[in-house]
């Protein structure tokens, strides 16, 4: 038991507990806040693996963008202290059966798979410079084309969401 392992179990306990509260609570605002804590815990796990860039991106986009957007729309569509209606028992039991069966099957497959031996921890630190060079190169293993496609997708999604959410004047 070294420090990294203990820290990993602690962080994953935080992630799973907050995700579970976020999925099981009936207060929607509390669900959003617990989702935020869970996403911060995932960023902590990335930091544990020396993935600084991905952790920063996780904090900026998920915590700073997506959860704030979700909280805004909760305030637009709910009263603040309103509880969600209790779901019917059959719906919850069905969802629980699907989730538990899937988890047991996946865990069984994972535990019976022999993964190739983890290669020794590479000393080369993942640098942002490396990521930028590979993302912008168009020879072998370059990611310029997916980058452009994803930028068009993002542009299309933003224009589309403005078009959908705009208020039409009654004529």
């Amino acid at each position, binding site marked *: 038991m070294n420090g990294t392992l203990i820290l990993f179990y602690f962080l994953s306990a935080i992630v799973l507990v907050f995700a579970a509260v976020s999925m099981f609570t009936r207060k929607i605002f509390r669900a959003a806040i617990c989702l935020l804590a869970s996403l911060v815990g995932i960023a902590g796990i990335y930091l544990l693996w020396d993935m600084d860039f991905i952790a920063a991106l996780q904090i900026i986009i998920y915590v700073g963008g997506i959860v704030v957007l979700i909280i805004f729309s909760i305030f637009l569509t709910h009263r603040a202290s309103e509880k969600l*209606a209790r779901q019917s028992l059959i719906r919850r039991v069905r969802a629980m059966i699907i989730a538990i069966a899937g988890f047991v099957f996946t865990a069984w497959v994972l535990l019976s798979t022999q993964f190739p031996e983890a290669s020794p921890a590479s000393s080369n630190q993942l640098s942002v410079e490396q990521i930028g060079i590979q993302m912008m190169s168009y020879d072998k293993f370059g990611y310029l084309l997916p980058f452009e496609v*994803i930028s068009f997708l993002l542009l299309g999604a933003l224009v589309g969401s403005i078009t959908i959410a705009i208020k039409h004047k009654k004529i």
Partner: protein
Amino acid sequence: MIPLSHILIVSSALFFLGVYGFFARRNLITILMSVELILNSANINFIAFNKYLYPDKLDGVFFTLFIITIAAAEVSLALAIIINLYRRYNTIDIEDTKEMKF
């Protein structure tokens, strides 16, 4: 070094928590939150495999970047649809908005 199978167990537990929320909830915003959890568990898997199996390559990092971008696009579009739905029907419960049900 953290064993790889423990990481995969954690991420699959996160995935199936999201699946539970996706099937059990009826409110559209909470369904959106469970989709976020599912995408995040996929991200953890990509980063773990990149770190453990191919530590000298960057492909898992790029897939994670693209998944985060797609999640941002998806959330903006879904919230626009939800707000439009609330404006027309005054509810965002998936069982109450049944105009397009066959």
